[in-house]
């Protein structure tokens, strides 16, 4: 099978990093540790595992950071090489699955989306760690242990394969969610990032009547807007978005106002009728969700949130340098939001992916898929994904069922 394989190679890491700093993601993809190779499909690690043939696989911000050498070294113990990236996957089940009491009844040919976290169930660890026992698989404590090589998710583990291949990956049944026949591949590939957004929103403590701001309106920012509209009741929802198409989409998904990022603080000041102390609002938003996670964006969020408000980092921050004095002085809560698991909603608890399926359909999130590329054109695809905002796009995906291309341009969805 053809697959993009990410190998451990310090010189190639360095080359990718340099290309990234120079602003060329396609060069980072071609010079870095990512290679398009012919390789064998991964073997089933144990009972309860099945083969899945990817149909569509998304390119995520964390994938780009890895390819560009911009990812934090924090992840090193939770990754095993070589691995095939791709954790936003919709695919077809190749094997006859034997259901157990924790897994869905699936048959060969079923379309599935992958919940990529490789938690205790996938790793054969009994009894599971406390978070996994509570269904909070995103917080699994055993990401490097059990019968699998280290890997926080499929797409970062040497044993599982990943979505960026034309063959198969292997998935534990607990990772799979059947896709309804009425849901398109474009919608289905948005379920995993939508689950991330929902998890962040549901954990943000957005009380009814709150003022909420979202900074950044790439894929995650837009999904957060949709999620807030689905599961919360804010008095106002403002979005700071760099590009025009992002602002248009944010409004379509339910934002009350979509502005240039530098306008966001001024709009919040007006709405909250705050004063300014330097750059910090004396009032501001109750909750700000940072989907950029740079030192500048975090500082902006700290300035825009009210004293004792909350800033949620949904973007992957890597190493940042910033002055946390306002956080200390204004008693702001700064929390991270990673992945998904099980959420408290209404009177009960539900898997985030179930909620994400509903959100994807109700908000028609398939429209966020802007371009599909065959895997042979991975350098173009990665360059496109890295400059999606500038190019008027949102989500860029690999179309793994695609035939070799005739034209040189990606196919618009």
């Amino acid at each position, binding site marked *: 099978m053809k697959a993009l394989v990410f190998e451990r190679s310090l010189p190639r890491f360095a080359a990718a990093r340099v290309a990234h700093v120079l602003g060329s993601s396609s060069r980072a993809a071609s010079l870095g540790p990512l290679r398009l190779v012919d390789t064998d499909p991964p073997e089933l690690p144990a009972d309860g595992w099945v083969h899945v043939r990817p149909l569509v696989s998304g390119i995520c911000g964390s994938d780009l950071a890895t390819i560009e050498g911009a990812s934090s070294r924090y992840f090193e113990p939770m990754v095993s090489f070589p691995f095939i990236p791709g954790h936003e996957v919709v695919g077809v089940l190749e094997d006859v699955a034997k259901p157990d009491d924790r897994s869905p009844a699936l048959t060969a040919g079923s379309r599935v989306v992958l919940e990529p976290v490789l938690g205790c169930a996938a790793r054969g660890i009994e009894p599971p760690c406390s978070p996994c026992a509570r269904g909070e698989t995103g917080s699994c404590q055993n990401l490097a242990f059990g019968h699998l090589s280290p890997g926080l998710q499929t797409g970062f583990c040497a044993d599982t394969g990943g979505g960026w291949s034309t063959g198969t990956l292997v998935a534990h049944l607990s990772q799979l969610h059947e896709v309804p026949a009425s849901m398109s591949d474009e919608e289905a590939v948005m379920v995993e990032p939508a689950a991330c957004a929902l998890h962040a929103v549901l954990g943000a403590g957005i009380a009814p009547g709150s003022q909420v701001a979202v900074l950044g309106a790439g894929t995650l920012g837009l999904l957060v807007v949709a999620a807030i509209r689905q599961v919360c009741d804010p008095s106002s929802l403002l979005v700071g978005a760099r590009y025009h198409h992002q602002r248009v989409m944010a409004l379509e998904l339910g934002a009350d106002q979509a502005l*240039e990022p530098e*306008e966001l603080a*001024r*709009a919040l*000041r*007006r709405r909250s*009728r*705050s*004063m*300014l102390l330097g750059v910090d609002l004396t009032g501001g938003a109750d909750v700000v969700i940072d989907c950029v996670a740079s030192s500048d964006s975090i500082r902006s969020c700290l300035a825009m949130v009210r004293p004792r408000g909350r800033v949620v980092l949904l973007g992957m921050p890597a190493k940042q340098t910033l002055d946390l004095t306002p956080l200390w002085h204004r008693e702001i809560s700064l929390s991270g939001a990673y992945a998904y698991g099980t959420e408290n909603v209404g009177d009960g608890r539900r898997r985030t992916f179930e909620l994400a399926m509903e959100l994807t359909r109700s908000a028609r999130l398939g429209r966020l898929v802007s371009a599909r590329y065959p895997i042979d054109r991975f350098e173009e695809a990665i360059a496109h994904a890295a400059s999606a905002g500038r190019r008027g796009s949102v989500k860029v995906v690999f179309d793994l069922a695609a035939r070799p291309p005739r034209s040189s341009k990606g196919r618009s969805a």
Partner: protein
Amino acid sequence: MSPRPGFVLEVERSTPPTLFWHGEGFRLERLPAGRSRVIYAPEPARALEDPRAAIRHALDHPLGDSEPLRAYLRPGMRLTVAFDDVSLPLPPMQAPDVRQLVIEEVLELAAEAGVDDVVLIAALALHRRMTDAELLHALGRRVYDSFSPAGRLLQHDAEDASNLVHLGCTDEGEDVEISKRAATSDLIVYVNINLVAMDGGHKSVATGLASYRSIRHHHNPDTMRRSRSFMDMHHSELHSSNWRMGRLIAASGIRVFQIETTLNNDTFPDSFGFLQRREWEWSLRDRASFLASSSALERLPASLSRSIFHSIRSPHAMSSVQAGEVEAVHARTLENVYAQQLVEVEGQSDVLTMGLPYICPYNVNSIMNPVLVACLGLGYFFNLYRGKPLVREGGVVIMSHPTRSEFHPGHHPSYIDFFEHVLAESTDPVEVAKHEEAYATDPWYVHLYRTAHAYHGVHPFYMWYWCAHALDHLSAVIVVGGERDAVRRLGFRPASTLSDALEMASDVVGPSPTITHMRTPPLLLAGVI
């Protein structure tokens, strides 16, 4: 030789290119021959030979139902001298400023009469507070040093509830609320600079010393649409409202001794002399000055060009001074303004072109932001008429200005939000007005207005309302050489060149449109018959 009156030039093939202001620069443009005309302002009126003597004469020989100033002055009285702020004159004039000359004479008489309780108030209305340097320039060292350290030089604070007094409502229900210090004085002496016909009269006190609660009654889209134009007080609802308020102030027992001055059209110093001479009369020196300044300005960053222009001090000279009862004084003032600025023009055209300069009343020592560009073009220049607008109903205005999306954060904080927020939703003045109250009462803007040098939060709304009559009247507004995004945010159309703009205008008003170009400043007022 008498100064020449204004002039309307019919453009022919042999006519030299016409100078258009373009922000901190100028352009020479060729207007289509046979269907274009250019209106030139009258030459500068004769300056008063002895301004101080003229002022003393005016104070001793008041107009209307008024005693000479000295007759009102007595020991133990409260005297408030209010004066126009930094928005006048334009450009700021070379020292000594007219206000200094007048106020020194007034204070001299007050001192002779033994008046001790004298306060000076800059009549800011909702404008920004003046800086110390600006006050010093307007008043002169002697007055400034006598009053400022003693805390007797004040700037009107329209948000200081404890220092405002509500005098009642006019028969049209308009609140009249003005400075308590002024209202409780035995005499208000108002020192005005009547640069254009809109200034002065009852507007001086009724607006200059009033609160938002009061000003809102005449600064709104409806009033502005019914002011045709506000350079013609007899057809201006803005003035009718101010006159009702002024008469209520008088009826409340508050005595106002009005001193109005007019300035001549001598607007630019010699180094920019070509700006006030007609192109075909340019000397070799004028041509050289134009070429040198144009090419230098093109190479300079905008901020440096701005500094150069804002350092210009106009050689304006006082052409008249009159004092006494407000209405009688203002009637004489208007005669003098018209004598200097009025140009008779026959009929309207399809297109009106105007080159907008670097300055308007609200960006002295500051930045001309896009909202002010709109206001200067559609609020001020469009309204520089008596009778009928220079452009026909359904016509097009073409303005030349860089229209940069730049704002002075200290002077115009609410303008930034107005541009980003309000104009993004609508450019219809009535729709815009729905946001007015929120901006007018925003505590941050109020704080900056009162303690820093910011225009009141509501001020950008007023700028937009000033455009209301023009926006109603015109089919399109085109900006030549402006930043495209900023121009579009204003609801206008961007064009790269004047010929592109004229072609775009033809799509609206039909082929081969007639064109009028206002060659101003120097200031002119078109009497359109």
